[in-house]
């Protein structure tokens, strides 16, 4: 991205414009050029600062103008709007139909409690001074001053659980690696966010990459590792570019003084988001799942004790050390403590990122925060937790966003993604897709997943063609149980969630 700076003596007006993938995909780059060109033509002094996204994706590209009383937003802004915006003198925050007022006071943001995403969309992701000015680096400073034992205790006390989907307590994982004697230990960041409906990892890496690097440095200090890897998926080219830049800035400023971090790029295998497959891939092999035990905490990358944590888990640690583990633990519901960055996706009017304490209901998220479907049709189903998550009908919208509450209803919080479908969805097709996806992405190591997913497609095809529907429905349930109980990892083990939930809550779709 080209930062545009004017070097005139008088002070330029600051304009903030995201360079987040979602904004770029909606034309933010052309918009930046159009704004710069128009300002030049009119002789207006401006400085365009490229940020991450605030997470209000229906307003992207969202342009913010710095004023003495705060940042005023305009969105969604297209290239065609630029002349008109300058004509009403938007640099003086004059009224315009696209003006959303003070961005901080927007209802979508006011309803949130941002810990992990506190800086995202506000700062220039590669500006070290922005990072420091907004509280960056304090978590690592605390950990360096207090030492490993106090850091482990704080992470445990915060109740932070793995945000990748499994929800395993981060403190216990870290302690296990700390307590395992070894000359070499590793910290591995799982940035292979492959679930459809999720983009929080991507947004964080593009909008506040230093938070992740700081989290990894803290983890390394706590467990005694000197080397870290970020395994990022190849489908995130923008995040890769930002992280590469962030690593070199972080090195310059001593953030990685005690732990070198290397970026590794995946090659399009969904299963590599599973931690043991990821480790195999990092070792340069096929991304095949390992049997557990041994746990990666004992026997991980190259056989050494390894922490494998998701992007959000690691990026949350600096905030909770800075603002207090107890304050974080005070938020949430049941055993799900703290906040969860929820991603509203698919057919939804107000899609984007919404970070709140655990416990909010699906209804509030979809109807109130999300504003229903983008198409304006009734919501029929939502899939929560990615391609392996259950489909829920409206009757289950009272479910609270909480690991245990979803498990109790045979669903998944997963990585916190919600995909909304309107009343035109064919659930039989969605069930078949789940099996098809599993067949395409299966690593092939265990038979239930490798063969069962193919058989699952075939059985659903028979149901679709109207052949022995009752018998085949029984067979499908039976097959799902085999997959659930017999698979090595969550890919085969969880694919029954979308299939069986589609069958249970939308049986009419299977008897057309």
């Amino acid at each position, binding site marked *: 991205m080209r930062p545009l700076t004017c070097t005139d003596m008088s002070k330029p007006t600051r304009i903030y414009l995201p360079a987040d993938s979602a904004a770029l995909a909606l034309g933010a780059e052309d918009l930046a050029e159009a704004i710069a060109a128009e300002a030049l033509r009119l002789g207006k002094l401006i400085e365009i600062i490229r940020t991450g996204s605030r997470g209000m994706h229906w307003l992207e590209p969202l342009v913010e103008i710095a004023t003495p009383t705060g940042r005023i937003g305009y969105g969604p802004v297209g290239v065609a709007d630029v002349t008109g915006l300058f004509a009403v003198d938007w640099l003086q925050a004059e009224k315009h139909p696209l003006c959303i007022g003070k961005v901080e006071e927007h209802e979508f943001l006011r309803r949130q409690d941002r810990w992990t995403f506190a800086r995202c969309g506000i700062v220039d992701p590669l500006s070290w001074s922005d990072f420091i000015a907004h509280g960056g680096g304090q978590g690592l400073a605390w950990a360096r001053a207090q030492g490993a034992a106090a850091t482990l205790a704080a992470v445990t006390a915060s109740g932070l659980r793995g945000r990748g989907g499994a929800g395993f307590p981060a403190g216990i994982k870290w302690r296990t690696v700390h307590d395992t004697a070894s000359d070499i230990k590793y910290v591995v960041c799982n940035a292979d966010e492959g*679930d459809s409906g*999720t*983009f929080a990892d991507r947004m964080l890496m593009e909008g506040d990459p230093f938070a992740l690097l700081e989290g990894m440095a803290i983890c390394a200090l706590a467990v005694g590792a000197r080397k870290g890897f970020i395994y990022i998926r190849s489908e995130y080219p923008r995040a890769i570019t930002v992280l590469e830049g962030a690593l070199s800035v972080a090195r310059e400023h001593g953030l990685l003084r005690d732990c070198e971090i290397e970026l590794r*790029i995946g090659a*399009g295998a969904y299963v590599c988001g599973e931690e043991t497959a990821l480790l195999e891939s990092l070792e340069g092999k096929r991304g095949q799942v390992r049997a557990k035990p041994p746990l990666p905490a004992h026997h991980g990358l*190259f056989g050494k004790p390894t922490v494998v944590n998701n992007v959000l888990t690691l990026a949350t640690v600096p905030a909770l050390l800075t603002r207090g583990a107890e304050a974080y633990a005070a938020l949430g519901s049941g055993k799900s403590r703290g906040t969860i960055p929820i991603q509203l996706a698919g057919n939804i009017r107000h899609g984007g990122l919404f970070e709140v304490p655990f416990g909010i209901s699906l209804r509030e998220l979809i109807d109130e925060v999300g504003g229903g479907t983008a198409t304006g049709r009734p919501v029929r189903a939502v899939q929560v937790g990615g391609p392996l998550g259950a489909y829920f009908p409206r009757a289950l919208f009272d479910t609270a966003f909480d690991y245990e509450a979803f498990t109790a209803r045979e669903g998944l919080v997963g990585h916190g993604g919600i*995909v909304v479908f309107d009343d035109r969805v064919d659930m039989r097709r*969605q069930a078949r897709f789940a099996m098809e996806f599993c067949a395409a992405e299966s690593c092939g190591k265990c038979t239930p997943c490798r063969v069962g997913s193919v058989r699952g497609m075939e059985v659903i095809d028979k149901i679709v063609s109207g052949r022995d529907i009752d018998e085949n429905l029984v067979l499908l349930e039976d097959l799902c149980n085999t997959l659930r109980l017999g698979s090595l990892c969550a890919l085969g083990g969880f694919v029954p969630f979308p299939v069986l939930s589609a069958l249970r809550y939308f049986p009419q779709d299977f008897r057309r």
Partner: protein
Amino acid sequence: MAWNKEKAAVIIEANRHLDGPALPVLRALHEAFGYLPEETTAQVAQALNLSRAEIHGVITFYHDFRREPAGLTSLKLCRAEACQAMGSEALATEVSQKLGTSWHGTTRDGRVTLEPVFCLGLCSVAPAALVGTELVGRADWPRLQQALAKCDH
């Protein structure tokens, strides 16, 4: 760039010091040449002191690796659930008709290769596509055409 054994050797040499070098080496070769021809296997295996079976296993495991050269621009259309909820299947049918090719196929003029992708992280602005290096949200055929036109320059 056409496949070239000497250039491949330079790329392998530049990456072989890494821990677990096979994947980064293959990625770098793929990035340089756009595909991994049959002769890659033996050359990489020899350089990394691994068996040809191991390298063949790695190449064939990962969806990103092509075995044949592709068109000038790759058009990746997302096929995952969030995009399905916004009509990506109908869009895919339309795109393949307009291009006159199916998944993994290349247009007759060699300009575009149509490829599926499972999630670009643009699930809130679906359907999504990646055209060359250009991300496209709320994709439809006219917007994809615009992006393709940009790639021609």
